């Protein structure tokens, strides 16, 4: 089956006074219907800019410098990046919607939850206010907000953080989009509330068969959500594979080290293996492997050339000249 969304050679740069920040470089991936693709990475790795580029939410000094974003949800292939603005408005919120990290800033404090829900519904579905109200109530029930009719008239400040995020999810799903982008949707929430929201998102994603792009820096969260995972570092994809391969068979040194740097709840560990050095500064970086300065497996050519994102195993893509090989992994396990 054709993927619903294909991102091809996407690069988004920011033209700052200090120089060009190459936030996203040459990103490629596909998202299918009813699939969850996770993007993990640290601050500045380009994960948010990637999805904002898909929604065309990049403003000056940022610019999408190259690439195509093919959307196939409307019965034909369309390049989102070359659509006129009014067409894009029809796609945003209807075909592709987005849930942001902080629900307090993504809701307008001056309008009731009902108004904000109905605005999206009326904009995209060609219904009167009464029907929109009914759809709105139905959506609030779907995201398990109690006393939905009453809550339609409440303002965002009257909701707790978890409830706000539920309302934002209700708005995002109100027009039954084919693609849902969730940018760190639970980072601002407490862990018991995070568990509720993740549970809800999993259920709704299955029910609506939405293709979901899920962005997080938390490897635990991504393990519970994603079918496939993109690991980003320094504005580039370092490894793309199924969730199982990323966690049990990581080939890129960065992924490998990242997994050993995080503490685990279910195990007693003696030490964490820290990754030395700092995340890269993004200004005027040369086209070499961004992880090279911190990489223990660095070869001479790593800081001279950029490795290709190559398919090393079926469906398992790695950008590295010197990937972690099988024998070293088993050695690492016996050491533990």
């Amino acid at each position, binding site marked *: 089956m054709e993927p619903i969304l294909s991102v091809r050679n996407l690069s988004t740069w920011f033209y700052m006074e200090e120089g060009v920040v190459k936030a996203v470089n040459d990103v490629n991936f596909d998202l299918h219907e009813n699939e969850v693709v996770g993007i993990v990475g640290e601050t500045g790795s380009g994960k948010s800019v990637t999805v904002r580029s898909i929604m065309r939410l990049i403003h000056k000094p940022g610019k999408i410098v190259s690439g195509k974003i093919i959307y196939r949800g409307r019965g034909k292939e369309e390049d989102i990046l070359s659509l006129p603005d009014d067409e894009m408005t029809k796609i945003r919120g209807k075909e592709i919607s987005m849930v942001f990290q902080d629900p307090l800033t993504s809701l307008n404090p001056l309008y009731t939850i009902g108004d904000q829900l109905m605005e999206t519904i009326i904009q995209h579905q060609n219904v009167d206010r009464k029907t929109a109200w009914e759809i709105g109530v139905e959506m609030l029930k779907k995201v398990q907000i109690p006393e939905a009719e009453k809550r339609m008239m409440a303002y965002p400040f009257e909701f707790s953080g978890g*409830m706000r995020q539920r309302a934002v999810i209700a708005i995002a799903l109100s027009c039954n989009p084919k693609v849902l982008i969730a940018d760190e949707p639970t980072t601002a929430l407490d862990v018991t509330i995070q568990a509720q929201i993740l549970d809800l998102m999993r259920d709704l994603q299955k029910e609506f068969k939405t293709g979901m792009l899920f962005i997080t820096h938390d490897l635990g969260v991504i393990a519970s959500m994603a079918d496939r995972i993109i690991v980003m570092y320094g504005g580039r994809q370092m490894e793309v594979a199924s969730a199982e391969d990323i966690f049990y068979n990581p080939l890129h040194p960065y992924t490998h080290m990242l997994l050993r740097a995080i503490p685990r709840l279910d195990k007693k560990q003696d030490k964490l293996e820290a990754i030395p050095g700092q995340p890269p500064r993004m200004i005027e970086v040369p086209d070499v492997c961004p992880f090279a300065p911190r990489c223990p497996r660095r070869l001479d050519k790593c800081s001279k050339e950029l490795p290709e994102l190559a398919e090393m195993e079926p469906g398992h893509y790695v950008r590295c000249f010197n990937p972690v090989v099988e024998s070293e992994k088993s050695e690492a396990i016996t050491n533990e």
Partner: protein
Amino acid sequence: MNEPIIKVQNLKKYFPITKGFMIKKHVGDVKAVDDISFEVYRKETFALVGESGCGKTTAARTMLRLIDPTEGKIEILGQDISNYNRTQLLPFRRKMQIVFQNPIGSLNPRMTIGQILTEPLLFHKIVETKQEAYDKAIELLRMVGLKPYHMDRYPHQFSGGQKQRIAIARALSVDPEILFLDEPTSALDVSVQAQIINLFLKFQEELNLTYIFISHDLSLVRFISNKVAVMYLGRIVEIGDVDEVFENPVHPYTKALLSASPIPDPKIEKQRKRIILTGGVPSPIARPSGCFFHPRCPFKTEKCEKEYPKMYKISENHQVSCYLVEKEGV
């Protein structure tokens, strides 16, 4: 067994709620910390965990005497400091230091790293001259993995992880015995978090430090601490050795917290049974009757709605405040 280095007894911190403009009427209290007791021994890492608003940070700040306790005793190194005044507290300020969550907010942007590190040395008269202070500051920078040439730079020239290293160097400059770590890595990326955590472990070993570690990240707590106290709405609901509490949690809230914490392993994540709690944490102004957790508790009984459960001892190093212990006789 040696004497505890920190002994907290029935510590309470209430923030009054007032009404009225000229004549303020006391209409209630936010009971941020409500009757907590525990002991910490030398070289231990004691973790306070819980969700936002559970009182973990207020507890730490009260113990540091950054805010005054409403009631209760805080014994540090054998002395009750809960009623000490500024001058009496001065020697204890040296013994107890804190590393905050946000290194950007805790370093003065107008001071160079050199000034930041030498100020406490000169203030507490740990060194005699500026030159000695300068030398000691360079040594501190080396200890936390920075270079001498960083001395003349300003905080904004550093990354988040480096700023946190500077904050640690400053805390260590006065040779403290107890370090309060208030979410010291939650503003940092995972790859940098591990560096900072390893630094804490190294210093604990080398300098015999005692840590009070405040965090909402249970995986990190499991890794770094020996003892853990789980707080809910100002009270400790479960306390004990970290392995025992995490492997055999008794309080339903502890169980829920543990099952809600994600594990970076897709197979485990798919098979895990989760306890999904309904609703959110109630307001600390209008706490529920009886056990504060009963409105969200899947095992609540009639008794839970009426009376707050006392602390039951499960083993030498594990206590829990829940009626389930009585019923099941764990």
